[in-house]
């Protein structure tokens, strides 16, 4: 009974289109679980099946050990925070939050105290009598979450609820959501196409593509040890450098890039000499002027532009074959002299790059 939600071999087809393709996962009690994927990957369909709005074509959905097959949405111990929140405009904040409690025939006095308590918890004390249209975007967000949390669901489902907010507010709400989840201890299942939301908030993230889960893991695992090129490309920024395998030894592969540079890198796949591969290399793994440090792969690139973005500043460089490579630019005076047109030497540790066989 450690998992609040267990999904086994879940399939959903719409006509000839398979939206969800044999998905399995477990969400441990009290955890923050995200499903990350591009739009149209099937993540919303999974959420709607858990909430009960769609019937699975096959497979099992269990919430706290109970099979949810045939249970109507209004009978399930889960609640959904909708993408556009779906607050009831004809009711005020209090009535919105009390809506679910009234359906459960909770007494008036009890409703009163519970609504006040949850408003306090989401940081909106005294907002009960406000109309929905009087609230700001962030406040609406919190009311929508409060409306679900007040029912104390086993699992709270969130369907990209931050999508409509502006960037600053989104950054703040990420942190608040995570804090809130920690406080209430409810299991959150959060779907998003924004990798940063998923990474910041989640205990576990499932990366989804074309109806399938590519990888489930902690944010660190996904970032550091992506299982597939899709995960490597979708989670965080990555430079992709095509090339061919020269030789394989001791779990390391030696590849020659299209520019003729030779690198050593690791791979999770079994590679053979002659295989065409892509090297995935994160910008922050590349050091500028690494010197003579032992075992570094090094190469030369020309600076095309300096992309200044505070702590997140980068160099846009190009290889001799005009392949663009992003390199993180540490904000210290050491590199103040770098400017477009100059050629620099860059280097990286072999563990930092990862090879995947390319299809082409």
């Amino acid at each position: 009974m450690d998992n609040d939600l267990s999904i086994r071999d879940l399939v959903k087809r719409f006509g000839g289109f398979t939206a969800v393709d044999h998905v399995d996962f477990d969400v441990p009690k009290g955890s923050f679980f995200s499903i990350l994927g591009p739009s149209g990957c099937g993540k919303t369909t999974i959420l709607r099946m858990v909430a009960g709005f769609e019937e699975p074509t096959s497979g099992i959905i269990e919430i706290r050990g109970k099979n949810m097959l045939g249970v109507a949405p209004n009978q399930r111990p889960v609640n959904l925070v909708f993408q556009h929140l779906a607050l009831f405009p004809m009711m005020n904040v209090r009535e919105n939050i009390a809506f679910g409690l009234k359906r459960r025939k909770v007494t008036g006095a009890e409703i009163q105290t519970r609504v006040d308590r949850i408003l306090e918890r989401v940081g909106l004390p005294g907002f009960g009598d406000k109309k929905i249209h009087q609230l700001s975007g962030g406040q609406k967000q919190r009311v929508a979450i409060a409306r679900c949390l007040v029912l104390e669901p086993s699992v709270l489902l969130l369907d990209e609820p931050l999508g409509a907010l502006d960037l600053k507010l989104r950054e703040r709400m990420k942190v608040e959501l995570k804090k809130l989840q920690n406080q209430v201890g409810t299991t959150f299942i959060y779907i998003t196409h924004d990798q940063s939301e998923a990474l910041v908030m989640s205990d576990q993230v499932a990366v989804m593509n074309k109806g399938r889960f590519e990888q489930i893991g902690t944010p660190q695992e996904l970032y550091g040890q992506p299982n597939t090129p899709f995960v490597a490309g979708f989670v965080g920024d990555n430079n992709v450098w095509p090339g061919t395998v020269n030789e394989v030894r001791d779990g390391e592969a030696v590849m020659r890039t299209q520019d003729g540079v030779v690198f050593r890198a690791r791979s999770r796949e079994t590679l053979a000499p002659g295989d065409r591969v892509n090297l995935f290399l994160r910008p922050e793994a590349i050091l500028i002027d690494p010197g003579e440090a032992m075992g570094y792969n090094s190469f030369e690139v020309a600076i095309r532009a300096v992309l200044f973005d505070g702590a997140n500043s980068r160099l846009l460089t190009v290889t001799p074959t005009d392949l663009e490579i992003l390199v993180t630019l540490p904000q210290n005076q050491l590199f103040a002299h770098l400017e477009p047109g100059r050629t620099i030497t860059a280097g990286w540790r072999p563990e930092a790059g990862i090879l995947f066989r390319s299809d082409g």
Partner: protein
Amino acid sequence: MRAKAAFWIFLAPVLAWLLLLIVLPHIDLLVMSFRSRNPGGDPGWTLVNYQRFFIEPIYWRTFVRTAIYSTITTVITFFLAMPVAFYIAKAAAVRLRGFLLILLLLPFWVSELVRVYGWMILLRESGVVNYFLIRFGLLTQPVEMLYRDATMIMGLVYSSMLFMVVPLVSVVESLDDALIEAAYDLGAGKWTIWWRIIIPHCKPGITSGSIVVFMLSLGNYMTPNLLGGKNSLWFTEQIYNQFIASFNWNQGAAFGFLLLLLSSAIIWAGLRLSGQKLGQVAS
């Protein structure tokens, strides 16, 4: 300055039209309603025409009857139109939507008289419906279905349907499906969703549709007269009788204004009860 002049030049025909065709005749009728019927003799001012409405029970009773039946018609029309509108706006395929609306519009391509005669042919004792009911052994004796209050209300509902469905379709269309799902998700059953979410959302459409249907029914003359038969005195018929049969235009004018005032009062009361403002409904 010139823009202002242009504004008035363009507005003038509209104002003239309103004045000539709507305001002036009404003023004429209003004056008439306060005069006694005696053009040759003393054309004095009097309230007698209005007093008669309240003194003579048959007049105000007819009005009350007309108002109650119009209200019933409005309510029935609403209950029939709501699922239809919901189906058209939410359930039907987009391509089907226009077709369904045209289907609703179809009866209005012929005049009201033709429609009412159509019903009479169907429902009369020697009519089509009776023929088939007897043919299939459901009846042994033909039944007169005309000249009943129920038939009359059915006729009124039939001819009002469109005017309820169209405003309802547009408000239902504007309802975010997520609201329905959210309510469902929060534990609401079907009835609660209708009652707490859909109906409150559709209020402006319901109100404007109801006002139109109520006014149309109240002001209808042909349907109550032809389908209602021997017991169905409608208030409009009474106005007609005053003008045409009794030659008492003064009385008829007074009844006309009473109809206007009382129906406005009923609508005002309805708006108050449902907590709405006319401006919201009209927009």
